[in-house]
């Protein structure tokens, strides 16, 4: 199956045409050759059979005439003419002794009556017959001077012929017939000769017969020694109807068998010599030739098939490779294509064209793929843009919501703050009044003093809370000032009321870049961070607050405010910048929210790093300016 698929249909077409081209003339020529051969063989065979028949007719005639001559010679003898029966018997006995074929001898007197009769199988006193009216006598006595005929079967089996010649008395003029000498001769010798000439092992047979069908001799002994021996009726019919002296042709027997027969007429005896052989035997050579041609044909077919397969394979191989390559191309595989053979012919041209096409296809596909990739990239880019725009919008919206919310909170806080500040102010005034009054009247009660202090402290605290809320919710325009970061930090730290238990450490970047900040707001942010740092390191232990300025990358300065407090756990760390989130017992939770708001306001960012038990570092990123 694999080889079938490998060769393809083209190979079989080529094979078919090769076979047709090579076999058709051969079959044609072979056919004709066999025909011609058969024709000539037929002629040749017929001619040969004819000559055999002619030859044998001659032999037969000679065979018969030998006996006639013996009779003629004997009849010419003086002793015989004298018609002395004793003498005659002596001669006749001698003939019987010499010629085994002679079965019987008689002498007829001039009247045609048997005067003497001897034979091999006759008794001592055989019957004397009268031949006056018979041809045996009249023929011999007639102008022909002889008689050869009267064919009979001796003992019903063996063909015999009767020959008679006149006994002429030469002593008188003209010579006068005084009697007739008659011999009955066995014709078995003819059959024996035929059998020797045409042996049973051969295919040919020969026969001698009379015109009326009496079978005289046959090469096959089984055919001749029979009471009813005759040739097959078809043969007999053909032979007895011939007018020619010799001839031949095909004879069809009953049962389909065909014979090639030839005949020759022994006109003096009016006998027919017939030679036959089966057509198959006659055409044996033609059949051999046919077989030979057939064998050659088979070889030619085999050779042609192999040759065509080889040639077809050779021709179709590059085409199949091309097809395979084209199939792969069709599947979009441009790499690892089968090696296309570029021969110096049309197939080579096709391969060249194919290679060109595949290159072009590859290029075009590459371009397509590239374009597709570009498109995908562009689509992705667009999607990203859309995403980012969406995010921006969302952020802007969130920002807006936040701002609105802050504005609302601010408004409310402002109102509430104002409204609470009034009573606070009143309380403050009143307690001041009381304190002053008490002070003028001597040393006041210690507990009263203590409680006045508590009230004052709480007023401060309440005021602080209001301040934080108002600061966080205040919507104000930035009032940017260009300052050197280190100088500004230095100024801020110099007035910050650090408690005694806190150490302050400063590490300022020598670059000391310029920043544009709203000093009030940024100060608030830094102060909140420092304040937080101080709060997580309470007295008496205290701790260290470290303030740093660093340039993390071009265009930015980072202000770190680090404490050595207890640190902030990670889960808390995420929420510390949210407004109102607090872990303190008292606090608005707005300190770090303010920090973030301020930093955001400055287009910076705030980061925090904390390790529990080590401390927390807040990092403010502020954009620098030239």
């Amino acid at each position, binding site marked *: 199956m694999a080889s079938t698929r490998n060769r393809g249909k083209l190979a079989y077409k080529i094979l078919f045409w090769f076979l047709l081209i090579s076999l058709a003339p051969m079959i044609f020529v072979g056919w004709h050759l066999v025909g011609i051969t058969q024709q000539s063989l037929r002629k040749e065979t017929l001619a040969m059979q004819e000559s055999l028949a002619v030859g044998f007719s001659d032999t037969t005639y000679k065979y018969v005439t030998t006996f006639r001559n013996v009779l003629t010679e004997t009849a010419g003898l003086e002793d015989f003419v004298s018609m002395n029966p004793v003498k005659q018997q002596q001669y006749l006995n001698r003939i019987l002794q010499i010629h085994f074929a002679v079965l019987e001898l008689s002498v007829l007197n001039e009247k045609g009556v048997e005067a003497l009769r001897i034979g091999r199988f006759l008794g001592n006193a055989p019957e004397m017959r009268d031949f006056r009216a018979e041809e045996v006598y009249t023929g011999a006595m007639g102008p022909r001077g002889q008689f050869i005929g009267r064919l009979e079967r001796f003992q019903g089996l063996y063909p015999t012929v009767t020959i008679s010649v006149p006994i002429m008395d030469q002593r008188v003029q003209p010579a006068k017939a005084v009697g007739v000498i008659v011999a009955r001769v066995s014709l078995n010798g003819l059959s024996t000769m035929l059998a020797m000439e045409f042996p049973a092992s051969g295919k040919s047979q020969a026969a001698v017969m009379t015109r009326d069908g009496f079978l005289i001799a046959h090469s096959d002994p089984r055919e001749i020694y029979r009471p009813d021996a005759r040739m097959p009726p078809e043969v007999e019919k053909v032979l007895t109807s011939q007018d020619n002296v010799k001839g031949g042709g095909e004879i069809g027997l009953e049962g389909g068998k065909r014979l090639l027969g030839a005949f020759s007429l022994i006109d003096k005896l009016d006998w027919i010599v017939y030679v036959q052989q089966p057509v198959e035997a006659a055409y044996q050579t033609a059949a051999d030739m046919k077989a030979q041609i057939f064998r050659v044909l088979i070889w030619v077919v085999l050779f042609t098939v192999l040759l065509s397969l080889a040639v077809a394979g050779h021709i179709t191989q590059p085409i199949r490779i091309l097809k395979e390559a084209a199939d792969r191309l069709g599947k979009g595989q441009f790499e690892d294509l089968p090696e296309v053979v570029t021969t110096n012919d049309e197939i080579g041209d096709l391969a060249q064209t194919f290679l060109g096409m595949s290159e072009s296809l590859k290029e075009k596909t590459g371009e397509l793929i590239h374009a597709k990739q570009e498109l995908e990239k562009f689509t992705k880019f667009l999607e990203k843009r859309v995403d980012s725009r969406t995010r921006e919008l969302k952020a802007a919206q969130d920002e807006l919501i936040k701002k609105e919310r802050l504005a609302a909170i601010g408004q409310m806080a402002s109102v509430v703050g104002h409204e609470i500040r009034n009573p606070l102010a009143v309380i403050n005034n009143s307690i001041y009044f009381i304190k002053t009054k008490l002070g003028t009247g001597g040393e006041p009660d210690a507990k009263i003093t203590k409680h006045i202090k508590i009230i004052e402290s709480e007023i401060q605290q309440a005021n602080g809370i209001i301040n934080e809320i*108002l600061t966080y919710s205040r919507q104000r325009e930035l009032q940017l000032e260009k300052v050197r970061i280190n100088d500004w930090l230095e100024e801020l730290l110099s007035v910050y009321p650090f408690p005694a238990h806190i150490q302050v450490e400063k590490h300022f970047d020598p670059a000391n870049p310029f920043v544009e900040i709203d000093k009030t707001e940024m100060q608030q942010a830094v102060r909140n961070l420092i304040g937080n740092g101080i709060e997580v390191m309470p007295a008496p232990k205290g701790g260290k607050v470290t303030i740093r300025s660093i340039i993390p990358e071009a265009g930015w300065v980072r202000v770190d405010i680090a404490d050595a407090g207890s640190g902030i756990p990670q889960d808390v760390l995420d929420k510390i910048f949210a407004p109102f989130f607090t872990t303190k017992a008292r606090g608005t939770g707005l300190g770090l929210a303010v920090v973030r708001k301020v930093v955001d306001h400055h287009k910076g960012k705030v980061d925090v790093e904390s390790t529990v038990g080590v401390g927390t570092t807040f990092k403010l990123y502020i954009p620098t300016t030239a």
Partner: protein
Amino acid sequence: MAKLPKLLIIDDDAHLRESLAEVLELDGFECHQAGAAKEGIAAASKIDPDAVIMDIQLPDSSGFQICQELRKRSKITILIMMTGRFLSSEEKKQGFELGADEYITKPFDLAELSARIKQLLSRNAAKGQ
């Protein structure tokens, strides 16, 4: 006995005015009170105060609006504005242009306020001589 400096306190919150007035009276000021802008202007015309302490937001008018009115009276030397909210720089600037001398945010440190008024008064007195 030297004449006590006269203060006019204008605020719609009676408790605030009263408590402030009484505290400042302890510190040696002669305090007058008014609950609204109109009333305040009338009182100022009548009593001719040395200093005015007034709320920025009054029921009938903005404190800033009456600054000018009060300034027309040359005797009024000091104008202190009280506020319960944050003031923007713009507002503060406007206030200063209209004649305000000082801003204080409620609740305020009374000792500091008293000292500040006294300081401003003595400075003006020194200028006047």
